[in-house]
């Protein structure tokens, strides 16, 4: 391990550490533009110059120079200061002075570093160069004249997103960033390029000219657009969410988020349910009402209904507390019929190892063989997909897919498309079966859609058996993962928001609404099935949720609740990690947080729930489910093999997420997401129009 001195401080570092990293370890910051700790090192901006001896008597780029034994590094000598000033002056020669109208202003690396290291005036009187802006789609705005050619975006697109379409073209004064052939950067991660661009060349299009960073109120919270549980920061002004940014969490999303999590926020202020509504029985028209009126209608309707004729379904975006209160509420009414698997999944809620990611997200990057089953990780868990990509890139991991072929950003072997093919693979001795068995850390990722079919239980049994056979589950390693795609699902399964003994699940509940055995139905944000067609028209339906989407369309009474940015709530991510989302803004109009709606309604119905505050609810909840108290911790999960006699059908695995940008009610209300569909999924728009 080389030992060196930086500014008279001695430090010992791992071999291969760069001087810049070593300095960082002892708290000395070296300015940089092109260096980014998750990308390759091109050393092209020269901002990180330091003085190194022994060596040639000239400044060296510290980001690209490895520490050597006995090096003496100076980061603040006169030579270094002079060199940095020089680099800064060069960078500013062609950089426009448009900070006052630049969205990056206030959080711009160039601005900050120019203050710290630049001259106070320009010695350059020639014309600045101008570069044509590039069209990168509906999310990323470009002002290429501001670009300092650090190539961070180019490296991000290639290395992290796996869509190598950006490049640096021409050279010298002509050098510019672009796609050369007017392509859009077709990735679900494009928003991250806005974050890593050190200047205002790439900025957010939806956020353009909307706010200044210093006037925003920042709230650290959790994303709910998929089950990955990305850590995010919601920036708000007044009651409006102005933008969403990623927050660092090494074990989940590193520092990235996908475009849906980042850009769908405009959907939070559209198509909102901001007051209760009641449907007129005669005319069928919805009209606004007060909470009391709405509760009164529900009370009178339920008066004639038995507990066993009431059912409840919970949707994809709701928090654990909401479901917990909902479940208590239904129990109080005497109902056993409830389900949170509104995607039709037959997944068994008894074995936690069967519905979460046992290896965890971070460990996927260490995998050397990965089997995907009925899943398109790019759409169902984008930040899981980046880990798979990392494993492929850095570990040379081999990937195979059983299921519908899809466009992944890495190479994979397509070994089949139906459960029968998985069965075959599990029995095989050569090919990918052998690769998995010989792998040090084999990983199997099953999409939640794989179990959403009539023979789902048999498919689950098959998957578990295959995992054993293929040695994905070992004594010291469990590489069996189910990738849920709804933020609420793992939490719902954890607290048992599934039919109680002798209760009915989704399919039977829906059938019951048609044959008259279910007379009243409560929907908590359940929008991912066609409620109008699936719920019998005689069934009295109450929708608790925040958007006027599929569920609300069918409802007889609507009770408006808060969205994920408007209430505190617990979410358990796909790895089984409980995390807390926090309210960034207040809910619109009369909307209330979901759990409190059930609390209030239960009192009206004479079956008051036992808690009055969220804290009390949580206290009670963790008494039953102690693991929910361990925020940000992922415990070990039990594992079981089912023995199932049922046969799997030959149907191919269908992918649950067809259109990445329209997966939930918030996205469907968002104009930005609709524009993305037009730009990135053009062919599917045509299909939908038909």
């Amino acid at each position, binding site marked *: 391990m080389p030992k060196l001195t930086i500014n008279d401080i001695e430090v010992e570092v791992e071999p291969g550490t760069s001087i810049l990293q070593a300095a960082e370890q002892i708290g000395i910051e070296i300015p940089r533009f092109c260096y980014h700790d998750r990308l390759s090192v091109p050393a092209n901006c020269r901002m990180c110059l330091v003085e190194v001896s022994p060596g040639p008597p000239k400044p060296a780029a510290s980001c690209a120079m490895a520490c050597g034994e006995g090096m003496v590094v100076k980061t603040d000598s006169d030579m270094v200061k002079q060199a940095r000033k020089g680099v800064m002056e060069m960078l500013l020669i062609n950089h426009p002075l448009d900070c006052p109208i630049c969205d990056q202003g206030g959080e711009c690396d160039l601005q900050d570093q120019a203050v710290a290291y630049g001259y106070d005036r320009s010695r350059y009187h020639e014309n600045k160069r101008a570069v044509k802006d590039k069209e990168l789609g509906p999310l990323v705005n470009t002002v290429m004249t501001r670009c300092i050619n650090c190539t961070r975006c180019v490296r991000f697109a290639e290395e992290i997103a796996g869509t190598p*379409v950006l*490049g*640096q*073209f*021409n*050279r010298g004064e*002509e050098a510019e960033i672009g796609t*050369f052939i007017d392509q859009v950067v077709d990735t679900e991660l494009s928003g991250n390029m806005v974050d890593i661009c050190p200047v205002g060349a790439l900025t957010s299009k939806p956020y353009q000219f909307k706010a200044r960073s210093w006037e925003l109120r920042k709230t650290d919270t959790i994303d709910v657009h998929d089950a990955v549980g990305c850590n995010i920061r919601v920036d708000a002004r007044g009651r409006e969410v102005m933008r969403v940014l990623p927050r660092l969490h090494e074990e989940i999303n590193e520092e990235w988020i996908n475009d849906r999590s980042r850009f769908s926020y405009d959907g939070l202020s559209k198509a909102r349910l901001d007051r209760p509504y009641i449907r007129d029985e005669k005319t069928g028209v919805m009209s606004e009402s007060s909470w009391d009126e709405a509760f009164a209608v529900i009370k009178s309707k339920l008066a004639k209904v038995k507990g066993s004729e009431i059912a409840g379904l919970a949707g994809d975006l709701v928090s654990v507390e909401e479901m917990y209160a909902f479940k208590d509420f239904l129990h109080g009414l005497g109902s056993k019929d409830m389900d949170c698997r509104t995607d039709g999944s037959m997944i068994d809620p008894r074995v936690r190892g069967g519905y979460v990611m046992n290896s965890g997200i971070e460990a996927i990057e260490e995998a050397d063989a990965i089997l995907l089953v009925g899943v398109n990780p790019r759409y169902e868990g984008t930040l899981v997909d980046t880990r798979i990509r990392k494993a492929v890139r850095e570990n040379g991991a081999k990937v195979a897919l059983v299921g519908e072929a899809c466009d992944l950003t890495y190479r994979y072997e397509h070994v089949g498309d139906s459960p029968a093919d998985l069965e075959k693979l599990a029995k095989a001795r050569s090919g990918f079966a052998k690769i998995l068995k010989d792998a040090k850390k084999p990983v199997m990722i099953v999409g939640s859609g794989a179990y959403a079919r009539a023979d789902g239980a048999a498919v689950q049994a098959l998957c578990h058996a295959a995992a054993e056979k293929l040695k994905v589950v070992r004594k010291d390693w469990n590489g069996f993962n189910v990738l849920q795609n709804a933020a609420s699902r793992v939490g719902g399964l954890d607290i048992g928001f599934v039919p109680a003994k002798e209760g009915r699940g989704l399919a039977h509940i829906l059938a019951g609404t048609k044959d008259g055995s279910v007379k009243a139905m409560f929907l908590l944000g359940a929008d991912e099935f066609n409620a109008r067609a699936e719920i019998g028209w005689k069934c009295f339906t109450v929708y608790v949720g925040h958007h006027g989407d599929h569920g609300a369309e069918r409802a007889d009474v609507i009770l408006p609740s808060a969205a994920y940015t408007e209430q505190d709530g617990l979410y358990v991510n796909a790895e089984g990690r409980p995390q807390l989302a926090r309210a960034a803004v207040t809910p619109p109009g009369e909307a209330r947080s979901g759990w409190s709606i059930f609390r209030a309604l239960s009192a009206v119905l004479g079956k008051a729930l036992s808690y009055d505050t969220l804290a009390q609810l949580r206290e009670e909840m963790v008494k039953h489910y102690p693991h929910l108290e361990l925020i940000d911790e992922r415990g070990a999960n039990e594992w079981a093999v089912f023995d199932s006699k049922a046969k799997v059908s030959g149907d191919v695995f269908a992918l649950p997420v067809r259109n990445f940008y329209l997966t939930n009610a918030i996205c469907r209300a968002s104009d930005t997401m609709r524009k993305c569909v037009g730009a990135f999924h053009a062919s599917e728009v045509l299909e939908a129009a038909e």
Partner: protein
Amino acid sequence: MKKPFELHADYQPESFEFTKAYQKKIKDVIALYPPGRQQSAVMPLLDLAQRQVGEEGAKATPVYGGWIPRAAMDHIAEILDMPAVKVYEVATFYSMYNLAPVGKHLVQICTTTPCWLNGSDGVVKTCKDKLGIQMNETTEDGQFTIMEVECLGACVNAPMVQINDDYYEDLTPETMAELIDILGQDMKPTVGSQKGRACSMAASGPTVMLEGAKKAKVV
């Protein structure tokens, strides 16, 4: 400066294939690099594509010189199994790759200081006047394109021009005019110094290392 690339220009062909003869050359070039490193062959392949187009252009009417269509870059990316954008990057970086059609004789005139001191202005003027075109333009018959370049490393014999693969040195306006005439008639002028000196030795013949000069058969 080279002609800018135009994605939607009507001269961009739909597709590009290497001819049999060139396919053989490509194989040889790729074999020079260790397995898994075929991408290193991108520069020679771009050059081969440009030459193939040049050969085709010499036979066409009107004639044209070698250049690299977008389809060729995509094809090379496919052959070498690399992202197309990486090929574009290389192709746009080096000035020797033409990304738009040029004349059959691409006259690159050096105007950097040593050549300029020795009269490159006259050479430029002769070209412009005689061909009736400005810098970066091509004559109507497709025979000539002229462009300005930076030092080509033959300053000892300044001023000089490069026409396709060959250097023509020690130019005067007169010799430049002659060159154009000869090339215009599809004949091949003497390459190198137009003053008759061998390589870059003194015009009067070698003054030092006489033995060596004899051995190298330059006197």
